[in-house]
């Protein structure tokens, strides 16, 4: 490894020690009310402790379960409906005005109603995750199906493909990159909405854990939880990209999703 390479890597990661030093100084001199602002070291200790006693893993597991559950249902419905709406203009014309009416209401605005009707538990959380990830997947799927290149359709027709064959062999694969973009965006939203839901409507998971840390007066746990939420979100996003690149889109070079 040459000097310039080391320099480049240093350039990329230099912010970490800088941030830690600044944070430590900040923690030293700033107080949260009567509480000292937790230093990075204190947070790490707390994080390690939560990790060792298994409660953090339990919370991560609960959150992953919630998000996986809601997101899978959402993806299933949104992709199916998206293909149908993209393919069939009549269905699109019927449903689109209705969906456009609901869409601008953010998931957080649904939260009170959902809690009012279903109380606190897995169901309201799941519903919010479904709602939160539904539209990015639906819209990208519709878009992908509607924008299948004419030349592919023409080529398929001259090869003798029927309507159903055209749908499964041409339209769906051609729309696939767009569907994946929707899934990735949808998953980001699902994760975000889940944490919000766990703050209020669900009594487990990382969101619930940081909320609980407020009442138990543990600012280190709050920040440790926040960092964990961020890292898990980032990790899942990276994993998704890796899977897509390696297995799903090997026919398409250098796609950016």
């Amino acid at each position, binding site marked *: 490894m040459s000097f310039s390479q080391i320099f480049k890597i240093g350039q990329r990661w230099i912010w970490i020690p800088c941030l830690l030093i600044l944070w430590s100084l900040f923690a030293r001199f700033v107080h949260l009310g009567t509480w000292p602002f937790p230093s990075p070291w204190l947070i790490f200790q707390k994080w390690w402790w939560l990790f060792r006693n298994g409660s953090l893993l339990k919370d991560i597991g609960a959150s992953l379960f919630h998000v996986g559950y809601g997101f899978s249902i959402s993806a299933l419905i949104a992709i199916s409906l998206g293909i149908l709406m993209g393919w069939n203009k009549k269905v699109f014309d019927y449903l689109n005005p209705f969906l456009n009416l609901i869409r601008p209401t953010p998931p957080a605005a649904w939260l009170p109603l959902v809690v009012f009707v279903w109380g606190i538990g897995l169901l309201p959380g799941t519903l919010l995750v479904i709602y939160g990830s539904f539209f990015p997947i639906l819209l990208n799927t519709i878009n992908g199906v509607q924008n299948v290149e004419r*030349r*592919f359709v*023409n*080529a*398929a*027709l*001259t*090869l*003798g*493909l*029927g309507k159903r*064959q055209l749908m499964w*062999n*041409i339209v769906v*694969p*051609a729309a*696939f990159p767009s569907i994946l973009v929707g899934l990735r965006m949808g998953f980001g939203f699902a994760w975000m909405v889940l944490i919000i839901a766990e703050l209020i409507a669900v009594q487990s998971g990382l969101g619930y854990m940081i909320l609980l840390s407020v009442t138990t007066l543990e600012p280190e746990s709050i920040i440790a939880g926040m960092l964990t939420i961020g890292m898990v979100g980032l990790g899942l996003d990276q994993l998704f990209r890796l899977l897509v690149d390696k297995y799903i889109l*090997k*026919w*398409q*070079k250098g796609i950016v999703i």
Partner: protein
Amino acid sequence: MTLSKAIIRVIRLKKSFSKGERGEPLKVLDGIDLSISEGEFISILGPSGCGKSTFLHILAGLDKQDEGEVYLDDRLITGPGPDHTMIFQDYSLFPWMTVKKNIGLGLKATGVPPEMREAICREHIQLVHLEGFEDHYPHELSGGMKQRVAIARGFALNPRVLFMDEPFGALDAQTRVALQQELIRIFTSTRKTIVFVTHNVSEAVFLSDRIVVCTKRPMKVKTIFRVEIERPRDRFGVSFNEFCKQVAQVLDV
């Protein structure tokens, strides 16, 4: 016109494109009559933008005429289908399918059983010299190779007639000549009827039994040449170049 039975008959074909709300509709095809006999290689030669591609799309059933009829074996062509398939300038291979799957798709769609499909694929991959590339994706192939796949895909269906829409237009000169030779080799061995659209005079003369020279838009048939030069044709031969000159003169008038 030959007296042998025509495989394709085009009768008074007319087509206009509407130009939005204002302005006259754009007349593209102005009453074209043409008869194509079985086993014939016929080229439609015309200046760029003359409507020859639209003409071919109507023949293939991918576009609708305003007036007139197209018959294939005395049946009216009303839509696209595997017995009158088409090869496109941009190859139109499906990027999510390997070479083999691209070639096999039409066979699968028309209900050819798997073992037979496999055999036909293999045979046609050999026909276009792509052995060893069966499992490659289109993005891994050069332009010339992609067009070979498209040719194999067309011939694999064993159609009554093959339409080719400037199939070599996007290729460099060398690849183009190589593929012309390949196509003639395949044509002479299969004797499939081919309708070939091009704006390249020497390509038309090299390939065709007959050349239909068209006017500028709106397209009409100007002259039909019968190319009587023995195959394989020598591009540098005197008779070949004389013929090209003759065709070019008619095309340019």
